[in-house]
């Protein structure tokens, strides 16, 4: 029981590291596309590890399935939202480079 607690704690801490790294990337990276790259790490791996830790703590099949469902749904929405934001950012990027070409 004690060993499981330690492993669960380790998983949550690893998840938090990914969250911190993702947030840092979101704040420090210079353009929208690289920021998205940082964000997806927090969403997918960070949340994944935290939820893995949670499943070990609860050790109940129903709770495990619910947490797995949450993870899958968050991944799907994160990927879709990233796709939409990415398209918008890419269009703005194209627009900007076109207007720079005009100035030359």
């Amino acid at each position, binding site marked *: 029981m004690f060993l499981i607690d330690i492993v669960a704690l380790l998983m949550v801490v690893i998840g938090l590291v990914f969250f911190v790294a993702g947030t840092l990337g979101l704040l420090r990276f210079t353009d929208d596309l690289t920021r998205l790259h940082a964000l997806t790490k927090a969403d997918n791996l960070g949340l994944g590890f935290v939820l893995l830790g949670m499943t070990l703590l609860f050790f109940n099949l129903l709770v495990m399935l619910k947490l797995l469902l949450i993870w899958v*749904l968050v991944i*799907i*929405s994160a990927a*879709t939202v990233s*796709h*939409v934001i990415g*398209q*918008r950012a890419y*269009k703005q990027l194209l627009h900007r480079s076109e207007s720079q070409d005009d100035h030359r």
Partner: protein
Amino acid sequence: MIIVDLLLALTIVLVAARCLYTSNLAESVVMFIVFGLLLSLVWVRLYAPDTALAEVAIGAGLAGALLLATLSQLHLTHAAKATAMARISLIIPVLLGGALGVSLLSLVQPAPGLSDLVMNNITQSGVEHPVTAVLLNYRAWDTALELAILMWAWAAQRALGPNLAWHGVRLQGLVLVYFSRLMVPLLALVAGYVLWQGAYAPGGAFQAGALLATAFILAFIVQQAQLGQANPAVIRRFIHHWAVKLLWLGGLLAFFVVGLAGLLLGYGFMGYAPAYAGALILAIEIAATFSIALILAALFTGEGRRYE
């Protein structure tokens, strides 16, 4: 845990201040959404999961979507600089907060509260979950008026002026289409689950209505993003169809029909016969869920210009 609570309290005040006192409107909206998410965490910490669910779904999610849609229709990005009067008026919330703090300290300990009264009568209320018992039975009158307020909000939005055309960007690819094909039925299913669960656990009409509204709004956005300006706006027309508009009023009507029946049968206005209370509450909640979902979605989509 006290450290977490203190951090949460401090962050929420800072986020609220930033939301009110930044001149960048987009930042203000994002801060409002963050404020809603943090507030729902506060409700979780106060052991109020019902309120947390409603706050995160309506306060952060739908209100945030409404504000973002409004922002896309405004042709400005920055609010006017705060006047001296606005700065001086900051003293009012500070005084109010101080007064609340003082009154909190002078409360009777332990506070008597109404929870004994609620729990002693729960077997007669028709549901097992105390929050639903309060909302749909003991204080059903308040909940009915909340539905009326939603109608009022819709009327106020209409009175502000014509709903403008949607300014969404046209997107490439089918990612959003497949996303909505997965999510819209799932949201409807979860809305049904949350509604049914309200009888014995956190959940109920407002949370379910917010989820269903999200399904409508998602379908609407995806339709707009795929088709752009040439869009026939099927979802919007469906929501504003006269037959569907009857459902907007369904929650309020159900409340008053049941309320009047209670009056005639001698249980008082909005009193239920204990034997039928459970079924009546479920019927009212189903009608209310559709009302809430449709009105919230109508607030988001607007009537739009006529395409006929």
